[in-house]
């Protein structure tokens, strides 16, 4: 007996039919397709990832929508926070070219069945790659919409088998002040950068491990070769260039909570009604546009994640 398969889109997908003209949609599909085929030196040079980066392309879901709200890559790739490389957003894409990601490894330890070292390139192949178009809301009150490629974080967690006593997952990025001048210039900050999630947050379907962006491997400024994307939280939770994963019983101390505990909390959920860390959060700017829009609770993902906090 044949069964008809009906695909019900996930509730978090940004609806393409809102405003996307067909020609834009078609051209974007062409663009993404080209990016995947190129995936190489020309794209690398243009978007600023290291020529030595050995990425891994993903197969796109054909049903994945392409909203016109997607931020132009030239903007998203040249307006970045990555303080390891400096504080000037417009220069990070150049400075982060020094990040060498070939042979990148992630240490896994803490409350986990098998502490181990993951070879990222090998491990990423264990998971089906998919595209997610997410809003990313920075705590500095600006936002972008980005097509990521990668896999749900929960798939990785399941493979790593944390012990039942684990309640949190802690992420740590690389430490290399020789190539990342910000880690030397701002020496009094607690490098390397750290972030964390409750395990139930980390297992939520929206929590995503990104290895690609705009159809090609992550360039340095976006957190090559692998980063976290947690779209309902402020952007600083989405730690870049992950080098260590640790499962813990206690809430881990994170970089910004260490530096400024009165300004930053562990949850860091997008809440337009709560001024946070020096910025009012009711509105957000859209880079590249003279436009300010209202910020939505949980960055527009309240229907999916509010239950985590009830």
């Amino acid at each position, binding site marked *: 007996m044949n069964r008809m398969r009906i695909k019900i889109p996930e509730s978090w997908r940004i609806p393409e039919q809102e405003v996307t003209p067909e020609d834009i949609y078609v051209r974007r599909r062409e663009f993404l397709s080209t990016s995947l085929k190129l995936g190489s030196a020309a794209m690398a040079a243009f978007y600023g990832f290291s020529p030595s980066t050995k990425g891994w392309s993903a197969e796109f879901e054909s049903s994945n929508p392409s909203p016109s709200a997607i931020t132009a890559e030239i903007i998203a790739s040249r307006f970045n926070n990555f303080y390891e490389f400096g504080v000037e957003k417009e220069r990070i894409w150049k400075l982060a070219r020094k990040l060498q990601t070939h042979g990148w490894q992630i240490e896994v330890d803490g409350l986990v069945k098998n502490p181990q070292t993951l070879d990222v390139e090998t491990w990423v192949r264990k998971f089906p790659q998919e595209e997610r178009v997410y809003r990313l809301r920075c705590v500095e009150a600006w936002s972008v919409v980005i097509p990521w490629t990668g896999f749900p974080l929960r798939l990785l967690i399941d493979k790593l088998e944390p012990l039942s006593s684990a309640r949190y997952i802690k992420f740590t990025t690389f*430490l290399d*002040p*020789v190539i990342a*001048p910000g880690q*030397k210039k701002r*020496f*009094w900050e*607690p*490098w*390397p950068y750290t972030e964390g999630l409750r395990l139930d947050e980390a297992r939520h379907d929206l929590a995503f491990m990104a290895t690609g962006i705009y159809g090609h491997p992550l360039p340095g400024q976006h957190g090559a070769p692998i980063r976290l994307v947690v779209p309902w939280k402020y952007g600083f939770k989405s730690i870049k260039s992950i080098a260590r994963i640790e499962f813990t019983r206690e809430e881990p*101390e994170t970089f910004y909570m*260490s*530096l400024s505990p009165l300004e930053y909390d562990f949850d860091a959920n997008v809440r337009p009604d709560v001024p946070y860390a020096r910025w009012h959060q009711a509105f957000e700017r859209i880079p590249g546009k003279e436009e300010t829009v209202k910020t939505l609770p949980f960055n527009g993902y309240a229907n999916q994640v509010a239950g985590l906090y009830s």
Partner: protein
Amino acid sequence: MGMKKTFTAFILLAFLANNAEPSDEALIPAGEFLMGTDQGTPAERPIHKVELGGFFLDRFEVSNQNYEAFDPGFHRSSASSCDRCPATRVSWYEAQAYCQSLNRRLPSEAEWEKARRGPAENPSASRPQETARTSLPIKAGAFAVDSPPANGYGIHHLAGNVWEWVNDWHDESYYRTSPAENPLGPLKGLRKSVRGGSWYNNVWYTQPGMRFQLAPHVKLNSLGFRCARSANGSNN
């Protein structure tokens, strides 16, 4: 009879020398050492030979208690608040003034690094790196200046606990032109060198040759200092 008195005095002196509390200063004898590291950035290169005259360096970072005797209005940092914890949130100017009030001075960057590297005959006598107060949570705070570990010269916390001001202006290219004898840093600059790392910095920052810089008016919860003086009796 005279011989007996002399002998008794000698024995007494020897006893006192063996049982006296160690001085609060360590003597770093004159001699040469290799300054810089190729593990860092261009600011730490090239590794070069430096000859220094003998000098005394405080075995401890200046404590809150001692600093308050100099500045009764001093407000202790909440991250370093015990009596014997290091005085932090002190600018380079204030640190220099404190040392001068005791007829001493801040160590030169070369002196600091030589002391940090430990005795030439046993450089690794800087006790095991893993005991240094470093790589800890920020909320752990600074440790008492006379708490372990000490290095082979008996100097505490040159690695970790709190950053330390040194006297020199900072110039990233200085090592390419610095004098081989008693270098004192550039004649002018915008920033002063700081050394040593703090309780919450990764061990990378505490390596002996690593150089960092800050404007002299800056105060940090994790930045203190210690004083030095030349062994020849001068204050230079």
